[in-house]
């Protein structure tokens, strides 16, 4: 099947084809009918011609024969014949020939002798044969018909003569030429071709016109003189001549076909164009809609296409409206219906150059999470909405938006100098009040980050957020963006990028701080501590990179490294005669990391002596239940678990109760001034008691003086570590330190109790 590219072509071809087929059918039918009609007409004319021929020749000859027969009965003539009066016979025949009007006439006696002859020659021998036949058959009636003699055709008759018995025959006849037949054709004004032929072997149907190739042929039996012969009159007429009168009709049909075909093609093309134009318009409009442009088509008619165009316009409008809604939604915070960050950024971007320098405030609603936990999401959202509306209402505030759950932002229009602090003050006064939302009164406080700059060249919004963070870090309620402080954060990020490389390159190494049994005054273990000596940065302190490693997930790799190094060190210590328990620090964030857990358990197998994992920040353990199980596995594997920095963080009694720890390390905050602060001493003593009663041994950190060590020992503290007992050292110095005596602890004093 063809695929038409246009409806016009399709319709045109279809209709023109249909028309052509119809016209062809009509033409064929007309041709058939005309041909049949012509054949019928010509056939009728030929039949008439045959009848005319019979009338003109045969019947005429029969009439003549009647005359001759009557003459043959004349008593005088018979008398002459029977008396052998030849001259009289000849004269009678001559008279008869002229009177009746025959070409030739003769008398043949019963013995076959030609007695008299008049007129043109006729084939007497053939006639005699006919006569002989007649004698044998005893035919005595008049006989008439066609006689063939070579090429010549005769119409001849035989009339018996009786006196009263048969005494002979009068024979007569004349040649029939083409001219004779033409006379017949002239009579019916049709130029047919006629011939009389022997009937034997002529298969044409008699008395019926047929089409024989390009000829219409009619054959008719004509009487034959000989009974055993037959003769046929054959008339032919060319079919083309018969059809000639219809040529005009054919021409008219052709012209009709050509003009009609043209008209149909043109009309269908025109119709299709009319039909296709609105469709093409719709198609173009649909493409516009697809491309996101607004589009509509002209409704120019009442028909289906008009309806379609109308529907299309409705749809297009609907899409535009919906898109508008979507755009609106995309720029609106769903919870509060305030503009969102995207709307704010777009507003900044679309500022005219006159506003090249803008001031952006990031405003955080403090303790929002807690407020939300109390009043619920919906009310807190309403609170934010109310705050937003308040903010928007402050004179000088140009745009506002909600950046995150608790943070709003605003662009303010003012001079940078003195006006800005005044404005921020105004804002704070406007916002910080008691809000009553759905009957719930809420007091709120805000912190602010302020940033200024050209939105085209700097990200003032991010800077405002940084300023907000800086305020938090500085524990103030307001900060202006400080590029330097932001630089530190950027440095930290680069630091983390370098950490793993530093591990590989050996820039990260361990130092070991000895742990002493306070009662016996001897070293029983070491705590492995990590150090980073960067060739470019110099010493990077653990306080600096450990939290960063925790934040960025690199603490896993770092801890594995530390574990391996520590295990090697323990081996060295053992080899040197120091069967120490090896303590390493494990971040609470790693507890629950299944990969690390397996790794650590496997590594512990290699340990030559006891291991202790000092777990810091127990509160940040993501899944406490799971964390407890992991710690239990460590304990089951023979690894001691120690609660590090107890008292400084968010450690709770609940954890103490659950953690399967064997050691509690009291934070050095409490130990450093134990000899000065009665309060600290009291806390330590009770903590020691608490730990002991929970079945844990107690280690004190930050022992700097002998006094402190003595006091702690007195309190029942089991183990101690600190600068006063031994600094963190690399292995070689450690060995030396261990070799030296420890006077302060060599003889334990009784601490103040």
């Amino acid at each position, binding site marked *: 099947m063809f695929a038409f590219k246009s409806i016009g072509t399709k319709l045109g071809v279809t209709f023109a084809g249909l028309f052509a087929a119809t016209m062809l059918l009509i033409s064929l039918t007309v041709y058939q009918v005309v041909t049949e009609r012509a054949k019928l007409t010509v056939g009728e004319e030929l039949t008439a011609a045959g009848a005319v021929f019979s009338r003109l020749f045969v019947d005429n000859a029969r009439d003549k024969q009647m005359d001759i027969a009557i003459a043959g*009965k004349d*008593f005088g003539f018979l008398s002459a014949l*029977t008396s052998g009066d030849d001259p009289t016979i000849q004269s009678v025949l001559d008279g008869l020939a002229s009177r009746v009007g025959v070409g030739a006439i003769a008398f043949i006696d019963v013995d076959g002798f030609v007695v008299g002859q008049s007129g043109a020659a006729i084939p007497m021998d053939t006639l005699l044969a006919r006569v002989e036949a007649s004698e*044998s058959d*005893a035919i005595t009636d008049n006989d008439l018909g066609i006689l063939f003699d070579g090429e010549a055709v005769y119409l001849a008759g035989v009339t018996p003569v*009786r*006196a*009263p*018995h048969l005494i002979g025959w009068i024979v007569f006849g004349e040649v029939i030429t083409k001219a004779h037949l033409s006379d017949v054709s002239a009579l019916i004004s049709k130029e047919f071709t006629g011939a009389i032929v022997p009937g034997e072997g002529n298969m044409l149907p008699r008395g019926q016109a047929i089409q024989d190739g390009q000829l219409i042929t009619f054959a008719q039996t004509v009487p034959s003189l000989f009974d055993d012969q037959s003769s046929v009159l054959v008339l032919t007429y060319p079919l083309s001549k018969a059809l000639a009168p219809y040529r005009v009709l054919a021409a008219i049909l052709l012209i009709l076909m050509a003009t009609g075909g043209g008209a149909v093609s043109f009309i269908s093309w025109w119709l299709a164009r009319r039909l296709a134009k609105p469709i093409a318009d719709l198609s173009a409009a649909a493409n516009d809609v697809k491309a996101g442009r607004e589009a509509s088509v002209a409704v120019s008619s009442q028909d289906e296409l008009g309806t379609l165009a109308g529907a299309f316009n409705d749809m297009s409008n609907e899409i535009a409206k919906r898109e508008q809604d979507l755009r609106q939604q995309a720029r609106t915070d769903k919870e509060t219906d305030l503009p969102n960050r995207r709307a704010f950024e777009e507003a900044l971007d679309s500022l005219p150059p006159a506003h090249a320098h803008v001031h952006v405030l990031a405003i955080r609603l403090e303790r929002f999470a807690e407020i939300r936990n109390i009043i619920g999401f919906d009310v807190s959202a309403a609170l934010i909405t109310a705050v937003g509306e308040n903010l928007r209402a402050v004179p000088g505030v140009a745009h506002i938006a909600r950046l995150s759950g608790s943070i709003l932002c605003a662009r303010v229009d003012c001079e940078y100098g003195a006006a800005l602090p005044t404005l921020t003050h105004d804002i704070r006064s406007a916002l910080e009040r008691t809000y009553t939302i759905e009957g719930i009164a809420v007091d709120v406080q805000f912190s602010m980050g302020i940033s200024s700059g050209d939105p085209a060249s700097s990200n003032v919004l991010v800077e405002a957020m940084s300023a907000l963070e800086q305020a938090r870090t500085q524990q103030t309620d307001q900060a202006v963006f400080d590029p330097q402080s932001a630089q530190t954060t950027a440095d930290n990020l680069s630091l983390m990028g370098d950490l793993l490389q530093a591990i590989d390159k050996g820039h990260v190494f361990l130092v070991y701080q000895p742990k002493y049994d306070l009662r016996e005054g001897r070293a029983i273990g070491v705590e492995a501590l990590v150090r980073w000596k960067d060739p470019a940065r110099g010493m990077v302190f653990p306080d600096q990179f450990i939290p960063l490693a925790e934040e960025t997930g690199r603490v896993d790799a770092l801890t594995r490294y530390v574990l391996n190094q520590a295990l090697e060190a323990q081996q060295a210590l053992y080899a040197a005669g120091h069967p120490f328990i090896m303590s390493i620090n494990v971040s609470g964030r790693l507890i629950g990391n299944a990969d690390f857990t397996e790794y650590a358990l496997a590594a512990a197998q290699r340990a030559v002596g006891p291991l202790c994992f000092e777990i810091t920040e127990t509160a940040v353990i993501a899944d406490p239940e799971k964390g407890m199980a992991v710690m239990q596995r460590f304990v089951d594997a023979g690894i001691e678990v120690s609660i590090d920095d107890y008292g400084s963080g968010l450690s709770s009694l609940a954890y103490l109760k659950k953690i399967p720890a064997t050691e509690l390390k009291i934070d050095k905050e409490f130990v450093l001034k134990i000899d000065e602060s009665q309060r600290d001493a009291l806390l330590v003593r009770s903590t020691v008691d608490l730990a002991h009663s929970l079945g844990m041994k107690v280690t004190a950190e930050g022992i700097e003086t002998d006094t402190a060590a003595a006091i702690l020992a007195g309190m029942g503290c089991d183990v101690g570590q600190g600068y006063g007992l031994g600094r963190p050292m690399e292995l070689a110095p450690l060995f030396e330190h261990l070799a030296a005596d420890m006077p302060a602890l060599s003889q334990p004093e009784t601490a103040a109790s």
Partner: protein
Amino acid sequence: MDKRAAFIGLFLLLAAPAQASSLTVTLLNQKSAGVGEAVVTFTPAGGEGVPITGKPADPLTVNQRDLTFMPFISVVPRNTQVSFLNEDSVLHHVFSFSPIKRFSLKLFGTDETQSVVFDEPGVVVVGCNIHDNMIAYLKVVDTPFAGKTDADGSFTLEGLPPGPGQLTVWHPLMKGRGNQLTAEVVIGPDGQALEFKKKFRRGARPVGDY
């Protein structure tokens, strides 16, 4: 076949004593059916002038009844007068163009009789100039030994003098010269029989069917 029969007859004749004899002639057509109304004559050798005696006279009247001559064929002894009697209610014009006797008896009415004497032997064809289909034949003979075959085609010549003679059998439709056959026969003392088979033309009155 007729010749062979003639020779058989000849031998029989030689062996017989000289006294009156007879000859039965039977004429058959091509379908072996007997042909009636054929005229049989016998003329003894040198017998010309033998008076016609002892022969029951044939009816010498030819009637015209129902537009037909009756009889169709008549044997007429020489010098016999034949009467033509009109028994129809219409007129007849009886004529003959025959060479031995041409005559024309114009328009005679009912029960009128006209007579003609036939003094030459031969065949006379009689017609009616008014009614084309009427035809009759007169066979004028000059021997006493003559007669017509019956429906079976047979006729017996009686009282024949033994010895040679000429036998003729004539019928107007018989094919052959003069419409007759001629045989030289010798009549023996005992009765003889001869049978002839000839071809006939078809005619108004079928040969052999009456």
